[in-house]
């Protein structure tokens, strides 16, 4: 009775979170206005997908309960790490104050004096560029001379040459003997009104200076040294801008939202594939190769029978991709089950073979001879997944993914094969003694996992790109590992982790586009997530440290027997 009530509690928390998430996404997407929403084509389907995202959140919380908190904390921790990395990459933002084009001029109402050997005459403009990148000896300081007479009232100006340049200038005036007699680092608003070329307080001006004697004067112009405060300030600002794009960029417009959703659908399929293999305790990373072959098979069908009815060609293409994935999953399955060949090595090798094969067929057989880049023609409208949101790649694949999630869940929990997979995964020897045909189970688990990866390939070719191109997936299988791990290989949780991870990936794209921070930051975050989520003793480690520190404080050591027993690690 108590358990039941606790479940109800989690269900309610999950549903509340679901409503909040659905509401938030829809609100951001339509800027909170009903008119914007009504103006959007197919807004009903957009809301439907958002509701599905919400449902995935509810399932996540309901299935994992307290585990959900740990996953959430891990993701937050990894995101914080990502923030530090991004900040690190942004450390040079303040450098823009010492880099850029500038102009220098001296103005006076006095008569200009033309003398040989000086650089400037009243009213002339000299220019240059400080610390130009990619130059062997960049300009760090510029020096100009001019001839002046006693009593001339001059103004010396140094300013950024154009709007793109943000260099922060400093100007020093010295007399013939080299003594600095005037200097400036900023300009006031009034000065900027007086001298039209100046734009900001980073420009420097020495205004209305009366020259003390006749002779050659020197102007030294250089960028102001950047203070640590400015560096940190600029870094944090740039990082905040980048993270804003990272965390909210995917909700800016419907086409960005679609990038997120379409990526999530692929990731959910790949995640399911990985999870199924992991459930049988097989560290198979073969999804990548299966995905390529699935894409190839469906693409060949779509190109060959593109003029047939969509009711015929799409199912045939799906069937082809499923078969390709199944066969390519069966190979490492057989090798592992009957020959005990290390599945990690064999799947990684088979991946490369599949990708090379895909490249070979694409380059020499499917690419139209006259095409400039390596890609097939676009598939005909009959041979693609029909979109459910106009002008996006959010297609009926949504329903295929829902079906796949339910199918994998049913397979694992309601069928003999699923039971055997879980038995083998929990303890292979025990399963063997218990009469399970472990070899057949391992083989089938890896082959069925291949089916899902093949489907993901079909989604890439017929749903997203609508043609075959080179590098159709770069390491999606590895992303699938994160999705499966975060979900603890639970098929009902995978939709949420798929949406979450795709959200980060989409965000990283927009961060790269908007803030020029490398997309790879998200892969660093990914590595951190894997490390943190698999570190079982993470909490214990910190507790142990605290105890040890306490013990040290008291002056005793933890007894030797308190050390955890050494376990033989997974080998081979």
């Amino acid at each position, binding site marked *: 009775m108590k358990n039941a009530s606790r479940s109800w509690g989690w269900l309610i928390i999950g549903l509340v979170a679901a409503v909040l998430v659905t509401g938030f996404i829809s609100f951001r997407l339509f800027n909170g206005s009903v008119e914007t929403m009504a103006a959007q084509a197919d807004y009903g389907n957009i809301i439907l997908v958002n509701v599905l995202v919400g449902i995935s959140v509810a399932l996540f919380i309901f299935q994992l309960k307290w585990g959900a908190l740990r996953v959430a904390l891990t993701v937050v921790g990894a995101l914080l790490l990502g923030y530090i990395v991004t900040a690190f990459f942004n450390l040079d933002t303040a450098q823009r104050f010492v880099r850029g084009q500038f102009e220098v001029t001296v103005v006076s109402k006095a008569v200009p004096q033309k003398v040989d050997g000086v650089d400037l005459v009243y009213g002339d403009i000299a220019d240059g560029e400080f610390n130009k990148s990619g130059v062997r000896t960049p300009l760090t300081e510029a020096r100009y001379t001019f001839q002046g007479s006693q009593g001339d009232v001059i103004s010396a100006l140094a300013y950024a040459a154009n709007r793109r340049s943000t260099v922060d200038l400093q100007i020093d005036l010295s007399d013939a003997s080299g003594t600095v007699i005037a200097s400036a680092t900023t300009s006031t608003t009034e000065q900027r009104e007086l001298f039209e070329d100046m734009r900001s307080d980073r420009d420097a001006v020495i205004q209305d200076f009366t020259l003390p004697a006749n002779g050659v004067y020197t102007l030294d112009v250089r960028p102001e040294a950047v203070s640590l405060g400015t560096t940190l300030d600029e870094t944090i600002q740039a990082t905040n801008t980048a993270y804003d794009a990272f965390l909210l960029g995917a909700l800016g417009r419907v086409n960005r939202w679609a990038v997120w959703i379409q990526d999530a659908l692929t990731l959910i399929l790949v995640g399911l594939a990985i999870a199924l293999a992991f459930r049988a305790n097989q560290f198979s990373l073969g999804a990548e190769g299966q995905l390529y072959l699935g894409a190839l098979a469906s693409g060949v069908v779509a190109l060959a029978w593109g003029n047939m009815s969509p009711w015929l060609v799409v199912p045939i293409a799906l069937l082809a991709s499923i078969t390709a994935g199944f066969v390519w999953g069966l190979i490492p399955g057989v*090798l592992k089950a009957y020959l005990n060949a290390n599945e990690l090595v064999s799947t990684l090798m088979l991946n490369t073979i599949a990708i090379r094969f895909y490249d*070979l067929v694409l*380059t020499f057989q499917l690419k139209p001879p006259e095409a400039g880049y390596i890609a097939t023609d676009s598939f005909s409208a009959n041979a693609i997944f029909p979109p459910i949101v106009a002008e996006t790649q959010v297609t009926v694949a949504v329903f295929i993914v829902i079906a796949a999630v339910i199918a994998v869940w049913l397979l694992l929990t309601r069928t003999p094969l699923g039971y055997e997979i879980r038995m083998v995964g929990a303890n292979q020897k025990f399963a063997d003694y218990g009469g399970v045909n472990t070899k057949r189970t391992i083989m089938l688990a890896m082959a069925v996992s291949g089916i899902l990866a093949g489907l993901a390939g079909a989604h890439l070719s017929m749903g997203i790109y609508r043609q075959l191109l080179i590098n159709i997936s770069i390491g999606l299988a590895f992303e699938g590992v994160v999705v499966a791990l975060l979900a603890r290989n639970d098929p009902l949780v995978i939709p949420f982790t798929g949406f979450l991870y795709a959200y980060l990936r989409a965000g990283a794209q927009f961060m790269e586009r908007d803030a020029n921070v490398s997309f790879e930051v998200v892969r660093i975050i990914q590595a951190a997530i*894997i490390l943190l989520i698999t570190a079982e003793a993470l909490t214990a480690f910190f507790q142990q440290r605290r105890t040890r520190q306490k013990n040290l404080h008291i002056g005793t050591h933890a007894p030797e027997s308190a050390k955890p027993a*050494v376990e*033989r690690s997974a080998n081979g």
Partner: protein
Amino acid sequence: MADAIIQGIFSAAFLASILRVTTPILLPSLGALISDRAGVINIGLEGMMLGAAFTGVVVSAYSQTWFGPEIGQVIGPWLGLVAGVFVAVMMALLLGFFHLRLKANLILSGVAISFLGSAATVAIMFELTGDRGNTSTLASLQIPFIQLPEFINSIPVIGPFFFQVFDNQSAMTWVAFISVGLVWFLLYRTPFGMHLRASGENPTAAQSVGIPVQRTRFIALMLSGLFAGLGGIHMSMGYLSLFQRDMTAGRGFIALATPLLGGNNPVGTMAASMVFGFFDALSNRIGSLQIPSMLPLMIPNVATVLALVIYALQTRQSQRVKALRASASGDFNNAYWNILQRLSLLHVILAMLAIIGVIITICLFAAPNGFGGSEVAFPIGFIIAAASAVLIAINVPFLARVERISQHAWYSGAAAVVSLGIYVGLFLSLFNAPTVSFPLALLVGAVIWSALGGMRLNGMAHSKTA
């Protein structure tokens, strides 16, 4: 004359290129071997190689700015080497910390380290050079190449050949092959090596006799990081002179397979690495022919999968022999079974090589345009398919039941010699005319077969099987 024959069988340039491409597999393989023997499989090798390769390039390039061009040119490569290896060892330390202290799953955290290496190098490269593909804008340096003294060239018969193979190899190639001996010494002749092997074989027993298993494993992981780092340095500062995104191209993963195939000892690991080096060099060699570049690039990976299968079959075979020996204690003829095992391995390898033919056939039929159109590709495809089918058919009977090798010794011998003749002949045709290659190859096949004991088998066949 002798010179010409040696040149005919092994082109010196080809052997030299085998050494060159073996190095980046051998070094991480030694790392994998050490960590395997300590019972901690190191999946992060790939990431550690990338980390080292990238750091080496960056440090060697920047050392010219730090120390001026003259000094920088000299110490830059070594500074890069040290920094790169340091980074790799630190990554290994991270892996060790997460697995040994935080009890993270070793395989998954190894995968994470691989991600980290791949992602962080690209991200930092993008920041430093604005390029995501390679570091061609950085003026990075190479580890020096070692020139042999001239007098070796003047030694008669083998001198020039030896000179051509070993001259102008990267210092890292020498380091790699010398390391084989060092690792052997470390594993089998030092107390630490014994602790390491004990920690791998039975950690509980090792712990109970006072071996610090955790610390040993930590050090083993760091040593494997060191070798992975050296391998990475060779990739970017010897093999090539720049860093490319994901330039190790799976060598860190291939390195996981080689110790398995080499019987988990340094010399075997070296032999297995050289087999991969052979296929790698072969794929470069074929790459110069009129064949789509994807096909030769597949070969090392196909070879790995095949090698895994061969290893598995071989393990099963030797288990069976062990069982036989146990049951037939006194009556057991060791020499007989050794020959049988060797010959069965030969048949396994010969049958497996035909799989490459099957894959080539599939490629020919799937993309005939790549091979000069369907008129050319389909007939060739049929020929290769038929040849592969025949090669598999004549070798497989001896895989299913080993006893058949002795029962039909002459038939087995003929199958082996003919198959060997075809493979070796194909290989030699890369360097010589086919009319010379195939007869020579049949001769080589016969020599190999009898060297493995095929001739002696006939006499023993029926005496000891009952």
